[in-house]
């Protein structure tokens, strides 16, 4: 399965980032492109996203968004709903279904 992630990493234009997705967006995770954010190194952000189920192949849906700056967002990841900010959601690369 990991070749999908590698392909995305070398060719980021092939996927959208979840941070820019509109409400109601449905897609599948193609890869993670973590970066340093909120004082966390890229590797740590990646691990936190993984721990909350943002793994290649998982289905996501953008369910809700906040009032101010459409932030934060609530993402359905398979059987769980995770709240996070668009800034960090940008590390999740998705393709629409």
């Amino acid at each position, binding site marked *: 399965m990991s070749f999908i992630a590698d392909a995305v990493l070398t060719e980021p234009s092939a996927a959208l980032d979840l941070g820019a997705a509109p409400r109601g967006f449905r897609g599948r995770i193609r890869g993670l492109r973590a970066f340093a954010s909120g004082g966390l190194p890229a*590797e740590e952000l990646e691990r936190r996203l993984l*721990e909350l189920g943002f793994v290649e192949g998982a289905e996501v849906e953008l369910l809700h968004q906040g009032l101010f700056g459409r932030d934060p967002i609530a993402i359905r990841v398979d059987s*769980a709903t995770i709240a996070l900010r668009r800034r960090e959601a940008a590390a999740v690369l998705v393709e629409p279904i």
Partner: protein
Amino acid sequence: MNEMSAGLRDLRIALVGNPNCGKTALFNTLTGSRQRVANYPGVTVERKEGSFVSPGGRRVRLLDLPGTYSLRARSPDEVVTRDVVLGQQAGVAPPDLLVCVADATNLRLGLRLILELKQAGRPLLVALNMFDIARHRGIEVDVERLSALLGLPVVTTVAVRRGGTEALLAAIDAQAPVGEGEAAWSAPDAAGLRALQREADRILAAVVRVPDRRDAVTRRLDAVLLHPVAGLVILLVVLFLMFQAVFAWAQPAMDLIDAGFQALGAMVGGLLPEEGPGGLLRSFLHDGLIAGVGSVLVFLPQILVLFLFILLLEDFGYMARAAFLMDRIMGGAGLHGRAFIPLLSSFACAIPGIMSTRVIDSRRDRLATILVAPLMTCSARIPVYTLIIGAFVPDRPVGEGAWSWVGLQGLVMFGLYAAGILSALGMSFVFKRLLWRGQPTEPFMLELPDYKLPRLRNLALGLWQRAKAFLRRAGTIILSIMVVIWFLSSVPRPPEGATQPAIEYSFAYSIGQAVEPLLRPIGFNWQIGVALIPGMAAREVAVASLGTVYAVQDAEEDTAQLGQALAGRWSLATALAFLAWYVFAPQCVATLSVIRRETGGQRWMWFSFGYMLALAYLAAFVTYQVARALGVG
């Protein structure tokens, strides 16, 4: 079975699982009220331990570990979970069995944790919790296949139903105690986590059939409760209702307690002479002990109503939604979205609030939350607010018609809470700028659990624990302070033929006189000065101290309401300044000591004491001077 197991030592079991997996409900069902809450040695992580006897006659000691997504501990809470699991926690013997609780309706993240735990090599049992909800929702789990694929025993549980733990208990009875020893484990890197989650997903695909829909109730509720505009409005309404309820619902119970203590006081007062050596004893029992304890205990109903709301919202699953709705607002003030839950708990008491900041991983964000948590109006301030509002704010509706259901007193109370909230946000903004020069806040990431109907049993247990904690406080710290206050305000006794009120011969009078010049600019008299000092030890004591100071001063007014006594003696400006003082009043000794423990030093404790004292003085000063300028002095 019984004979065989009678000679064995207690079985040690630890519950581990994701947040929101129903672990605590399972713990409550298994142990009932046989549980103790203490701290792990050296850290302030709450250690919840309980015991029960299994159907097979085994005594079991059950440990409820803090919820975690991974053993890769990031917060103090998660460090404890990891160390207990690995048998490395000081003072905790390695468990004989780890029961990994997984939410059957949301197995994915739980399954990854199970795989991670399996690598640690400890004896492991999987409990698929909320199995009834899963079945109701059409989720089919092939338990035998899951057990085979995991290579672990798997049972299904329904924590909230009688008989829902039978399979788990049977599995526990089958478990033999294992030897000591540490487990080998190293934190997985991103590739390791990915591999684990992929394996979990593979297993899931093989054993679980999920109908392609989310929980319909949660979906419908979230459409409203997480609506960008309606959600915020509803959150405000919920908070407002909470404070109205604190006033309205608690009143009958409060009247009852009040009447009880007055009757007790009158009875004791009637048994002892007013003059001579017996007079001192009478004064101690009547004015010190009974009046003091009574004036604090009377607020138990309000504190319970407040905790009832907080527990209800938490069990219902609304707290995480509130954090979601408030994230941007909190973020604007430099706080982490997760700070919302600790801050909301601080409405009950700053101590659990400060302790629950452990869910915030970053030390800086945690510190900012700890510093402002005491600004949230804790329940210990309710007695003070209630007293002053009751005495100075008329009990009438705000307006006619549509507004007739909103009481003016409730509105003022709401305003005081709002002042606390706004100042907490403001101060964290200032701290962020001054202390940390705008370094970024850690990412906000939080699971929003499905809504669940709160269970009576869990609520009752939670309320009972809170009530116990409050009563213990009232019985120890507060009581001893009351005795000291009584002593200071009753000794020395006035000489024979004294013409002044008795208190003017006491130590309290001298202390009050000494601090009075400092307090004059903020409109406080010497009686307030006397009450403020013990009020720093525990806020609600200020009310009891005022009661003691005024009751001792005018013995014939013993039975009159303290509020009436104050209304006759204080100007409105003084009353308002007193309220303003208490919005910011430096926290109680217990809170200060928790801050010291949580921040690992005295520095931040003194810092928060100092800044709150300065704010309190400033707020009272401004309020008093403005009120006087407006002609209510």
